[in-house]
């Protein structure tokens, strides 16, 4: 009896000690386990392109905020979907907690995006979409809205005599279609004043030439909408060269050249997407998915109208001029 009690007490002490040890190590283990990994595959990593730079900045910041391990891989060029597909396969093999993808192609990326979904890894599409609705969530700029802001702005200056031209980027691309739709929507009753819609295939020179042609064809043209940076800048170059102060140009996206055209007054306004927010929201959505929270199927990262006098406001500076290490 006496011996039993003694051993029982010793056991109790030992068990208590072990339990405490267990708690101690369990605590430690849990601290290490909380880290999620995420792979981001943009169309391209281009330090000189503000859009990608800001998008990646947003992704990086959100990853840091959510304490995630981030890997970014991308093809050399924006339209190299084959290379991107190979990278997707590689990423699936790494079995990360989530994959963020900016699909290079609306159609060609789809089968590979499916592979991500099939392997059970959450897929978040950023900036662009694919032709099947398989991603957990899609974070894009509302392209219709983007066009609508342009159209809305132009409508203020539209008259019955107006001649409006739209310079698109790639004919048949989803963004081009949606943005054009938005412009038409924004113009409202002046939609029928659109005299021409041309496409520059995302080429400055082609856009420039197209604008030159338009100015010849429609000498009274007074409103021009560029649907992306290439088309807008190309058009602005032509207009500047011709000295046509009477033509109001609106553009989408920003670049230094675009801002300078804005400062010069060639551009009336530019509508910019918010790639930083896009990237940030993308990773945040991933974090929330991994936390078991519900995330909306589509998230709009918003757009911003920038006019000549709002370029250098505190807020817009950051959107327009990414900080560059020199």
């Amino acid at each position, binding site marked *: 009896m006496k011996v039993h009690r003694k051993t029982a007490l010793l056991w109790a*002490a030992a068990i*208590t000690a072990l339990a405490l040890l267990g708690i101690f190590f369990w*605590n430690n283990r849990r601290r290490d386990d909380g880290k999620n990994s995420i792979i981001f595959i943009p169309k391209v990593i281009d330090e000189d392109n503000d859009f990608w730079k800001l998008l990646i900045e*947003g992704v990086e910041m959100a990853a840091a905020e959510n304490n995630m391990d981030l890997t970014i891989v991308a093809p050399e060029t924006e339209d190299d979907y084959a290379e991107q597909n190979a990278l997707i396969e590689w990423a699936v093999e790494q079995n990360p907690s989530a994959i963020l993808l900016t699909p290079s192609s609306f159609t060609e990326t789809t089968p590979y995006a499916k592979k991500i979904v099939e392997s059970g890894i959450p897929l978040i599409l950023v900036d662009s979409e694919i032709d099947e609705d398989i991603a957990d969530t899609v974070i894009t700029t509302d392209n219709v809205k983007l066009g609508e802001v342009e159209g809305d702005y132009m409508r203020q200056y539209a008259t019955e005599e107006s001649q409006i031209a739209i310079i698109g980027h790639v004919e048949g691309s989803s963004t081009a279609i949606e943005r054009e739709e938005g412009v038409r929507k924004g113009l409202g009753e002046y939609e029928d004043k659109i005299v021409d819609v041309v496409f520059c295939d995302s080429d400055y020179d082609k856009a420039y030439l197209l604008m030159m042609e338009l100015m010849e064809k429609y000498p009274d043209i007074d409103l021009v909408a560029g649907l992306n940076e290439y088309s807008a800048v190309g058009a602005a170059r032509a207009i500047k060269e011709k000295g046509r102060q009477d033509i109001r140009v609106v553009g989408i996206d920003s670049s230094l050249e675009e801002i300078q055209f804005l400062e010069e007054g060639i551009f009336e306004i530019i509508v910019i997407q918010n790639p930083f927010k896009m990237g940030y929201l993308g990773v945040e959505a991933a974090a929330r998915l991994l936390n078991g929270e519900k995330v909306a199927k589509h998230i709009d990262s918003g757009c911003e109208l920038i006019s000549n006098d709002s370029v250098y406001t*505190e807020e817009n*500076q950051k959107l327009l001029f990414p*900080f*560059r290490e020199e």
Partner: protein
Amino acid sequence: MSGKKNRFTVLSLFKSVKTTMLCLFSLLIVITMAIFLLISVDYTKKTVLENSTDYTSRLVRQVNRDIDSYIDYMENISSMIIQGGDVQKYLFMKMPKEETEEVYGRIVTQFNTVVEARQDISNIAVVTPERDFIINGGADKLNENVSLQDVEWFEEALKGDGSILTASHVQHVIRNNYKWVVTLGKGIENPQTGKNGGVFFIDLNYKLLKDLCENNSLATNSYVFIVDEAGKIIYHPKQQLLYNGLKEERIEEVLECASDSYFITDERGEGEGKLYTVSVSEKTGWRVVGVADISELMKNKKETESVYVLTAAVLLGIAMVLAIFFATAITRPIKELKDSMKEVEKGNFENTDVVIRSDSEIDSLGNSFNLMTAKIRQLMEQNIYEQEEKRKSEMKALRSQINPHFLYNTLDSIIWMAEGGKNKEVVRMTSALARLLRQSISNDNERIPLEKEVDYAGSYLTIQKMRYRDKLEYEIEVAEDIKKEEIINLILQPLVENAIYHGIKYKGSKGLIRIVGYGEGDHIILKVIDNGIGMDEAALKGIFDKSRASEGNNGVGVHNVQTRIRLYYGAEYGLHFESTLGEGTTVTIVIPRNFREGEQDEST
């Protein structure tokens, strides 16, 4: 007694003192440990927080000092350049073209030197509202699309005296520049008008601030940001998030904060608070704010806590073991005392002494117990001795003496025989009497060999046979193997005497007395058998009555024999009478074989 038992005491909680002690020890230890843990953890938390705030505030102050020293340096440069006079000369004095170019050259060289020497200076320039300018090495131009009146800081510097410092911004006054900078501007007085006629400014590379704020060794997930007096952000690593409304910063609280103070937020949504440490620069009015996750700062705390808990657990274990050890050690004397008492309770006084180790209460209790048992033992010994003495004297008193009548009768018989000339008979009887007398006188020893006792009875019978002539016959049949056994003396003769006087004497015919002795197991059986008149039931019952003995014949008798046997051998032994009226009586003596007196008591 029972009323007392029901009262609650600590000891009544558990069955044994040891368990009680153990449980109370454990309780004490656990409570002490818990209190110790709570206090240490709380103290650690305080200390860690104190150290953290101390550390971060020192860090933040350092950042602030660094910035101040930069600004100081920049101000020195601007003062130096402005006081050099060349700038004023170039801007406001009308000079011959050659001299103008010379001055311009000097200024540009100076600017170039500064820009090239200092990586942290992006631009250095002089600009007038009339759009005269010298920028860096002279290659840069003003941005023709920017009207200077619209540039806030330019206007401010132009109108104010002393230097101004902007928040971080994109430098768009210079064409194609668009660098992120912090601008230090100063109006340049036109000596002719007495008013500022231009602005000298130095652009501090934003990277400098970024590096200063980021190259600090704060914990992970912490950051440093800078706001100016108005709450405008000079630098914030998450500026984008703030502008996009994805995050909020506690700028108002920071602005309310005194210098070198801190506050802790408790963002409920995130569950963990943040430590804001604020340092205000007297020079710039900027507030450098360090923000750190409390949870990150408390990382060490968690480890320390774990160590505490672990140590406490180990100590607890050791303390428990020690408690068991101590409880056992303390209660051992009590247990020994208890065991001893149990023995004494059973009546065993041998080897019950408790070992005395010290002079504690328990040991003095043991000591008293020892004294008590010794005293009891002594008293018992004394008692036994006295009892023995008493018994011995009783035995002596009870020992049968030669009946004087018998002696007288025998002597009378001898005389008669002598007168009748029966010498032979006289010799026999006299020698038998002599033997009888010798034995009766000489035996101081209570115990004698059985054969001697039988001889004694034999001598008696010889005399009686001669006296009663034809009336008495006797036979002695004692087994050889018990002849040497020692028994108490003078037990057979009284029985024989009894048989003669109560059995044979009244018998008309010749009587026979047989003495039979044999061993039976551990007992010796001695029988005195007569064929006398026998006894009826009533007589048999009253055989041991003392009165009967005294009433009768020889004074001693059966009763005394019985008493002596019992006194000597114990109550289970003694005499047994069987008698049939008219046929005779058999007295059986049962006594133990190989009896040692020491076996029962300590008499000598």
